[in-house]
């Protein structure tokens, strides 16, 4: 059996859903050990066990929560010295990719990022990665061991498999030399009414919205549908809306019942984060925009007229 590690990502004591999605695939590929670091690791271990981890290596040192990437890299490298796995899975999330990048460089093995799937074939691991603007999928074979693959959130469905994990305490102390990039304050700015990742309907705006002043039109539509508002990278980069609203490769991955893309052309950067939505509606001035070729319904016209008309019709329907 191949030996698989899953890096369980914790945010201030909370196990991230992506880690359990990884567990679902990992347990099909071999014997799974999860690594949980920082506050909440012990509580997370029970959950990881139910999802198929045979062993959970954990350490609740405060350093994992307070310092960026380096303590976690140290812990994984330390554990690696004591028994190398064949495959290490990370979520393709901002925090995990920093640890994965450092670890890959330290071990000199490289990595495969942005994968949508990973499978074992003849003792090798093959990952599926979007290619050529997302029109193609490349099968990438990893040539060095351990293989490190970062998988996009929502690529797998998390499910319990029963069972419980043996707990192994990682008996290492994080040195001061790795306590450098210290998080001294956490500021919460956005309070989402409906969480983007969980919303049944997502309405996302892009450059075609004309400017940040028009985003309330999307909020009104979202309210009428009980949905959440997202955005393309272009308008996040332009500073129209916060990063928390970004849908796409390096933003959030969503798969709602209905996704309404408003004024978004449909670059791969965006579509990899939303193309698993059940139904896609695109509203765009350009009938030739790539998003139109993947939408179940494309409406060609001025978003600033269509969106309010739709909101008004929904309100009239409710009475």
């Amino acid at each position, binding site marked *: 059996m191949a030996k698989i590690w899953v890096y369980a990502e914790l945010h201030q004591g909370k196990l991230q859903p992506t880690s359990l999605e990884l567990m679902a695939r990992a347990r099909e590929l071999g014997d799974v050990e999860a690594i949980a670091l920082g506050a909440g690791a012990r509580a997370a271990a029970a959950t990881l066990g139910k999802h198929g981890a045979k062993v959970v290596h954990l350490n609740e040192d405060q350093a994992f929560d307070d310092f*960026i*990437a*380096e303590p976690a890299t140290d812990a994984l490298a330390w554990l690696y010295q004591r028994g190398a796995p064949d495959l290490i899975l990370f979520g393709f999330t901002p925090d995990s*990719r*920093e*640890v*994965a*990048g*450092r670890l890959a*460089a*330290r071990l*000199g093995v*490289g*990595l*495969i*990022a942005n994968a949508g799937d990973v499978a074992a074939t003849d003792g090798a691991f*093959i990952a599926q990665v*979007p290619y*050529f603007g997302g*029109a*193609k*999928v*490349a*099968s*990438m*074979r990893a*040539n060095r061991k351990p293989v490190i693959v970062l998988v996009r959130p929502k690529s797998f469905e998390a499910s319990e498999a029963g069972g419980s994990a043996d707990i192994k305490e990682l008996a290492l102390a994080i040195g001061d030399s790795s306590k450098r*990039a210290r998080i*001294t304050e*956490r*500021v*919460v700015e*956005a*309070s989402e009414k409906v969480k983007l990742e969980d919303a049944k*309907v997502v309405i996302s705006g892009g450059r075609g919205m004309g400017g940040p002043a028009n985003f309330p039109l999307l909020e009104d539509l979202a309210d009428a*549908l009980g*949905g959440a508002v997202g955005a393309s990278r272009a308008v*996040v*980069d332009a500073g129209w809306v916060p*990063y928390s609203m970004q849908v796409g*490769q*390096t933003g959030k991955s969503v798969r709602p*019942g209905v996704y309404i893309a408003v004024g978004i052309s449909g*670059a*791969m950067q965006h579509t990899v984060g939303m193309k698993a939505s059940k*139904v*896609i*509606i695109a509203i765009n001035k350009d*009938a030739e925009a790539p998003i*139109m070729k993947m*939408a*179940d*319904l*494309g*409406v*060609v016209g*001025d978003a600033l007229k*269509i969106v309010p008309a739709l909101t008004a*019709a*929904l309100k009239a329907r409710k009475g």
Partner: protein
Amino acid sequence: MKIVVTVKQVPDPNSSLGLEADYSLAREKEVVLDPGDECGIEEGLRLKEAHGGEVVLVSMGPERARDAIRKGLSMGADRGILISDAQLAGADALLTAQALAAAIQAEAPDLVICGTESFDGSTGMVPPMLAELLGLPQLTFAKKIELDGSAVKVHRQTADGYQVVEAPTPALVTVTAGIAEPRYASLKGIMAARSKEIRQVGFGDLGIERGEAVETIEGVADAEARKAGAVIEFDGTAVDRILQVLAEAKVV
């Protein structure tokens, strides 16, 4: 204060991605300095203006990547280093990070600024690898940077706000596109850039080895394409059509 900014030449994000009939990437595409890197250069210049010192641009790419460096020099950066060698063609993230690290190490900077991720690859894997290879702490997703003596402080963008992160220098910082509006190069800047140094570095100068490729492409298949549905004009019936689709999806 010596600041190194890594820069990359990428296909113009404003042009659509070109595919030839055989699905190979269209080579004649317009290439530009990565817009995210322009923001990194701008932030580097602002820090230099506030604290003194030098801004050095480091890029890896084909000969034409010289144009991307030149653009940064015309914005006001002091000099450039271009790592260019046929042996580095098709480099993966690890080899890229190793090459950049070797060139940057020789500069012994106080601060390394990278874009969070490139516009073409968008995986953001090179910066953490580079930080590891240089032995530097990494302060990522910065939307604000403050320097105070031998300490750097950033506002690190998160899903629901930001974190304040502090580290001693030297350090590596990745910046989001929102950090600073890049300046336009002035005519004077463009003229001055012509005489600024761009030192070319070959593979042999780096003291690194190119091992077996970390990964190889086994095959390429069509992505599972969603079928295009109806495309309609916004007319008197369009709203009803949308409502119908929403009703079929059981969200209204």
